[in-house]
């Protein structure tokens, strides 16, 4: 990923690069390769602007340079028994916090307390003209001004260059356990997911490995409490299996690192969905060799793995037929937007407002 990339070492240098470069595509460590592709922009990596600037465990907040790796953040939080509840993705692959915001990726834990958008509280960004702009703040509750930090979640580096970001964090639950349930078919799985999601059990995560027809439910809390809740759930479903901690770690890790499919260097596509829409695309996916899907966030997102780029056109058509949008986040692909993406006047107007010099890649 380093070819053709500029890696400024500090803010002043970053500003100079921004001024001297006609068009910029901000990137982090390049873990989401399709989102780093560009033909008309210079990739500028923020990976050297890294490090936690402030971390106040008693405030439940931290501020970090955008190029800080998730690993560094996750470890610093863990030391204080805190965490980002949305299960940051691609931690081990080397993803940065800035790239996580720009790509808008949240893991299975998004189900319980929300995703990246729900935990970002502030941002400092460089506008195309080099101005340093503040959005949001550093306190957990704030309703002043437009919510630019949340807006940037999923913005793919098209509007501004994030340099510093602030997040809210939560205390880590004392313990977790994972249950799995076999399902007869996808319809039953979606029913069961809804049942758990609507219950007072407060599941921490609910995912579904479609190819195996297995639901995974993660519980979080004091040991004794989650033991009792897991017993109650298994009674309710007349079965289910409690995973060992190694099995559980391995399963959730395969989701957050997007390597569950077993394909060699797969393309991974993020498709926001809901249960019934997933059911609409499921038959086509299961009939097609080289395609594997994983439903996460209790049906809120479907991760689709393709064993080669040859499937992209097919998937594009499938998603369009159901008015679904897909974002290609991993693998070798020239395309990152597939399915039903729309552009309206509002989007173009906001792009012009935030990036009047058209310094960043187009939307």
């Amino acid at each position, binding site marked *: 990923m380093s070819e053709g990339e500029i890696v400024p070492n500090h803010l002043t240098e970053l500003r100079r690069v921004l001024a001297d470069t006609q068009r910029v595509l901000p990137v982090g460590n390049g873990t989401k390769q399709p989102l780093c592709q560009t033909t008309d922009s210079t990739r500028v990596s923020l990976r050297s602007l890294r490090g936690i600037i402030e971390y106040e465990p008693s405030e*439940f907040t931290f501020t970090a340079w955008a190029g800080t790796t998730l690993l560094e953040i996750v470890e610093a939080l863990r030391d204080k028994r805190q965490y980002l509840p949305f299960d940051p993705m691609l931690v081990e692959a080397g993803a940065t916090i800035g790239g996580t915001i720009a790509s808008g990726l949240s893991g299975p834990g998004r189900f319980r*307390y929300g995703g990246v958008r729900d935990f970002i509280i502030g941002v400092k960004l460089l506008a195309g003209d080099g101005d340093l702009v503040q959005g949001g703040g550093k306190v957990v509750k704030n*309703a002043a001004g437009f919510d630019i930090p949340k807006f940037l979640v999923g913005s793919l580096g098209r509007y501004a260059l994030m340099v510093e970001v602030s997040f809210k964090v939560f205390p880590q639950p004392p313990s977790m356990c994972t249950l799995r349930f076999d399902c007869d078919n996808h319809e039953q799985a979606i029913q069961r997911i809804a049942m758990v999601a609507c219950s007072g059990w407060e599941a921490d995560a609910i995912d579904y490995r479609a190819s195996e027809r297995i639901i995974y439910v993660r519980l979080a809390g004091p040991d004794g409490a989650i033991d009792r*809740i897991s017993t109650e759930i298994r009674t309710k479903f007349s079965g289910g299996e409690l995973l060992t901690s190694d099995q559980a770690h391995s399963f959730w890790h395969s989701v957050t690192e997007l390597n569950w499919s077993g394909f060699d260097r797969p393309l991974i596509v993020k498709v926001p969905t809901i249960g019934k829409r997933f059911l609409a695309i499921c038959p086509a996916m299961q009939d097609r060799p080289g395609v594997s899907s994983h439903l996460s966030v209790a049906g*809120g997102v479907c991760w689709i793995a393709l064993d080669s780029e040859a499937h992209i056109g097919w998937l594009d058509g499938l998603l369009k037929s159901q008015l679904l949008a897909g974002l290609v986040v991993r693998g070798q692909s020239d395309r990152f937007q597939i399915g039903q993406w729309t552009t309206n006047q509002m989007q173009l107007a906001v792009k012009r407002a935030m990036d009047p010099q058209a310094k960043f890649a187009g939307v």
Partner: protein
Amino acid sequence: MTAIDGLESIFPEDRLLRDDAYRAAFESDGLTAFRTKPLAIVIPETADEVIAAVRWCNEHSVPFVARGSGTSLSGGSLPVAGGIVIALNRLNRILSLDPHHRIAVVEPGVVNQHVTNAAAPYGLYYAPDPSSQSVCTIGGNVAFNSGGAHCLKYGMTSNHVIGCKAVLATGEVVSMGGPSVEAVGPDFTALFCGSEGLFGIALEITLRLLPKPEMFHTVLVGYRSLQAAGEAVSAVIDSGLLPGALEIMDALSIEAAEAAVACGYPPGAAAVLIVELEGPRERIEYEREQLERVLAGTDFFAQRIAVDEVDRLSIWKGRKSAFSAVGRLSPDFLVQDGVVPRKRLGEALVRIEQLARDAGIRVANVFHAGDGNLHPLIMFDGKQEGALHRAEELAAKLLRLCIEMGGSITGEHGVGMEKRDFLPEMFDAPSMAMMDRIRRAMDPKLIANPGKMFPGKEAPALGFSGIHPLEKAGVISRE
């Protein structure tokens, strides 16, 4: 041609209100210090009528203010002189409620509490709970990104709005987000939330519903000093618990609440702390023991644990009534809504006390301690010459204190009319310029709720004549 020619073809006579009596009825909102009579009020019954009204405004360059129940505490729905008010109360349909996917699609005039009522049979609820939730509307909540007592754990309105169809000030109808909690592309829904009506009007809002907590555990703790209550908050937070609510009231607000609703708070308390845990029974049984241990290590002198839902609500009644109850101590008061970092709460309270003493003004304090959200209640008598001005001067100092401490000028009420002059003190010129450009992208003619959020020249009449009538009647209360 009159200023509203053409509106008659959109609205029948009984939904296009022009006479003085109606204009007076809409001249103010929850922030009664400001009042302005609009040119007219239109009462659409369908989204198409809202769109038509906005397009008419755009075509004729007439400013408009969208209004729900008018409970804004920052003057957010204050009319604009020469503009029209688009009253959305009749767009009060819950368009769909899908328990399977835990979402509801509602019109902007739906009352917050009604969403929870509709979701209750499915074991679901809508989490954001501003104190005026029995009357405030979802459209207003979206515009001002309203909060409530449970923000620490569940976030604010924007954390629960996953999609929105809106008409922008330009007349363009746009859809943002969708039925999924996840999305691809920039989060326009989040940008729209909290935009204070400056972009346009929400027509359909998609809300995320949560399973109703199986159990609550609510504890009221009395302390001999505010500092001791503040230290208890830190102890709870540091223990790793994540309560649904962590609230503090000081002696003055306790006195007011006691007089108003006889809430039975511990006599002689300089401060009370309300801690509420919520979740599955199995977990709460563990967490309540943990909380007991934490509180045992604090310097409290009285403790009351809610034994049932009635008892729980009686604890909350004191807290929820505190603001309007202050009306018993003072003919008038201003509610402030600042945020400081939680660890600086104690310092902030000492500084507030000093500033109040210097100004010779009584200030009661109620706050969402868990997220550092202060609500100082500045008491004054509006009939006394210059009293409102002095109260406002003190309010300004308190807001500047929040900025100086690294906090915010608003945690949940929004900037609105009230704090528009302070936004540039929180955000520097380039940041203000960026927000101004975004606003103009959505509303090039600056006709959508002009005069709010951004400092402006439009100056409404300033006066004060007591608390809001609904508040006086006990229908609404301030968070």
